[in-house]
C-alpha cells in the first residue's frame, strides 16, 4: 500500500507539465502527476476542474498543448489512442460509451481486439486458426463475465441495460484489454448505494488480484478516502495538492477549494 511513498517504487505513469486550452479556456494548466505502479490513484476536484480533460490526454483522445506523458519509461505523448491501448491503457467514460448494437459478450470481446490477430482472409473463412483464436479469447472474456457477475446478461444488447449495469459492462470491456493502467472516469456517478458498493468491490479486486494500476476520478469523498492510496486535487485546471488521503484531507488549500466552490 505505502510503497508509493518510497521513491524507489516503479512508476506506472508520469505526466509532466501537461496543459490543454479550449479556445480561451484553460482546461488543464501545467499539471504534473506521478503514479507509482500498483496503486489506486484518485483525481478529485470540483466540476470543470479539468479531471476528464487530463484523462483524455492520458488516453490519447486529446493531444496536449504542452507537456509529456510517460507510460513506464516510454514516452507516449505522440502516440495515437489505438496504439496506447496496445501499450496497456484502458479506460471507461464519464458518459458511458458502449457499443450498443453489440451484446454484452461482444462488447467485452471488443476489449480483446488488441490481443487478437485474425486478418481479413482468416475472418472470411472463420476456420482453423481464426476460430481457435476466437474460442481462446472467448474464454478470457467469460472469466471477466463471471468476475463481474454478468452471466445472465451475456446475450443482451447493452443499449437495453440499466444505467448501473452499463457502467459495469464498460468496466468489463476495459478489463478485457488486460490493461496495466486502468483509467476510470466517475465509475460510481449516478449509482445507488448498493451499486456503488459493488463497484468499489470490483475496483479493489481488480487492483488487488491483478495488480492493475488504477487512476480514478470520483466525487464521492467517502469512497475516495476509503480506497485510494494517493490523491491529486485539481482546481480550475491546476493541481493544488497531492498526497495520501490524510495529507489531502488536512490541506488548507483543498478545504478552501471545496468550500469555496459550494461543495
Amino acid at each position: 500500500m505505502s510503497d508509493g511513498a518510497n521513491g524507489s517504487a516503479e512508476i506506472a505513469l508520469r505526466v509532466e507539465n501537461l496543459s490543454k486550452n479550449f479556445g480561451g479556456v484553460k482546461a488543464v494548466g501545467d499539471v504534473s502527476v506521478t503514479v507509482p505502479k500498483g496503486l489506486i490513484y484518485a483525481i478529485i476536484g470540483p466540476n470543470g476542474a479539468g479531471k476528464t480533460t487530463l484523462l483524455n490526454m492520458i488516453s490519447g483522445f486529446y493531444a496536449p498543448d504542452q507537456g509529456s506523458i510517460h507510460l513506464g519509461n516510454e514516452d507516449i505523448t505522440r502516440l495515437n489512442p489505438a496504439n496506447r491501448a496496445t501499450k496497456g491503457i484502458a479506460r471507461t467514460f464519464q458518459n458511458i460509451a458502449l457499443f450498443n448494437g453489440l451484446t454484452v459478450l461482444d462488447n467485452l470481446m471488443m476489449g480483446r481486439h488488441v490481443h487478437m490477430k485474425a486478418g481479413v482472409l482468416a475472418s472470411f473463412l472463420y476456420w482453423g486458426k481464426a476460430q481457435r483464436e476466437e474460442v481462446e479469447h472467448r474464454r478470457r472474456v467469460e472469466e471477466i463475465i463471471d468476475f463481474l457477475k454478468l452471466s445472465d446478461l451475456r446475450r443482451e444488447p447493452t443499449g437495453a441495460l440499466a444505467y448501473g449495469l452499463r457502467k459495469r459492462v464498460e468496466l468489463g470491456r476495459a478489463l478485457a484489454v488486460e490493461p496495466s493502467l486502468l483509467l476510470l472516469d466517475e465509475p460510481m456517478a449516478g449509482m445507488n448505494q448498493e451499486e456503488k458498493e459493488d463497484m468499489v468491490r470490483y475496483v479493489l479486486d481488480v487492483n488487488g488480484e491483478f495488480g492493475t494500476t488504477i487512476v480514478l476520478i470520483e466525487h464521492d469523498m467517502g469512497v475516495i478516502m476509503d480506497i485510494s492510496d494517493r490523491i491529486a486535487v485539481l482546481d480550475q485546471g491546476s493541481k493544488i495538492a497531492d498526497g495520501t488521503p490524510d495529507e489531502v484531507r488536512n490541506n488548507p488549500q483543498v478545504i478552501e477549494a471545496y468550500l469555496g466552490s459550494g461543495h
Partner: protein
Amino acid sequence: MYFRQSGYYKTNYKSDMALLPLPIGQATAIGYALLFFVILPLAFDEYLLSIVNIAAIAVVGALGLNILLGYTGQISIGHGAFMSVGAYTAANMAKYLDAPFWLTLPAGGLMAALIGVIVGMPSLRVKGLYLAIATLAAQFIIEWILNHTPVISGGIQASIEMPRPEIFGVVLETQAELYFFILPITALAIIATFNLVRSRIGRAFIAIRDQDVAAEIIGINVYRYKLLAFAISSFYAGVTGVLYTYYFGIANYEAFQLPISIDYLAMCIIGGLGSVMGSVYGAVFVTLLPIVIRFFMETVGVFFVDGNYLAQVIAQMRLILFGGLIIVFLVVEPEGLNKLWQNIRNYFRVWPFSY
C-alpha cells in the same frame, strides 16, 4: 410445423459460436441448398431463371454495400462506379489475355478494392454528408474517366464485348447454365459475409458504427478500419460488376451510373441495415419490384394509361415507389424487411399462443 427443443445445451464455446448452432438451423440450410440447387432450376423456365440470376448478382453487391453502410456506418453513393471498375477490368482481361472467369472475378474485385482505397483515403477523413458528397463525386469522376479513356473502355460507346464464361471447356450460354455459375458465387459471398461480420474485424466495424471514440480508445485504428471496410465493400462491388458483365455479355459504364448506386442503397435500407439476410431480401425485392410493376401495368395498367406513355409511367412509378419505400422503412422499420420477416416468424413459432 417446426418443433424446437425447449433447450439445446451447448457444452463448449466452439459450438456456442457456430454459424448454425441449432440442428434445425442446419436442416434449414440443407433445405435451402436443395431448393436452390435442385428444385428451382428444374421448376423455372429461362425467363424466370434470368430474373433469379440478376437478383443473385445484386445480392453480392448489396452484401458489399451493407458491410460499409449497415455494419461500419459509412455511406457511399459510388457503389455503382466500383462495379464498373470490376466490369472493365474483367472485360479487358478477357479481351486481351483470354482470361477465364476464375481470374477475372478476383481481379475485378481487387482492382475495385484498389480504386476504393484511393477514393477512400481522402474521403474517409470526413463523415456523414461530406462523405456522401465525396463518394458521389467519385461516382462521376470514375464514370467520366472510363467514358473518356478509350484504352480502358474500348472506344466505341465505351463498351467492350465479353465472352460467355467457360467451365471445363463448356461455354455457359443458357440462363440455366449461367444460374449454376452465379449461384455458387452468391452463396459463397453470403457465407463469407456471415463469417466476416462475426469475426474480430466485423466487430470492429460495428464498434466504429456505434461509438467511434470508444472504438479508437479500445485499440481500433478507426481510419484504417474504415478504409478496410471501404476496400472490402468495393471488392464485392467489383465482383458484382464482373458478374453483370458476364451476364449481359458486355461491359458498359452506362449500366453502373448513379441510379444503380441509389438502387443499392435502397436494397440495404429496405432489406435491413447491418443484416446479412437483409441484404439478400433487399436485393431480391429491389430487383423484382420493377418487374412486378411492369407486369402489373401491362396487364391492368393498360386500362388506365395511354399505351404510348406506358414505358414512361412504369419508369416513374419505379422511382416513386423506391423513394417512398426508403422513407417508409427509414421511419417505420429501420431494420428493414429482415426485421419484418423475423417478427412474422416469431409470431408463427408460438402460434396459436399469442403473448
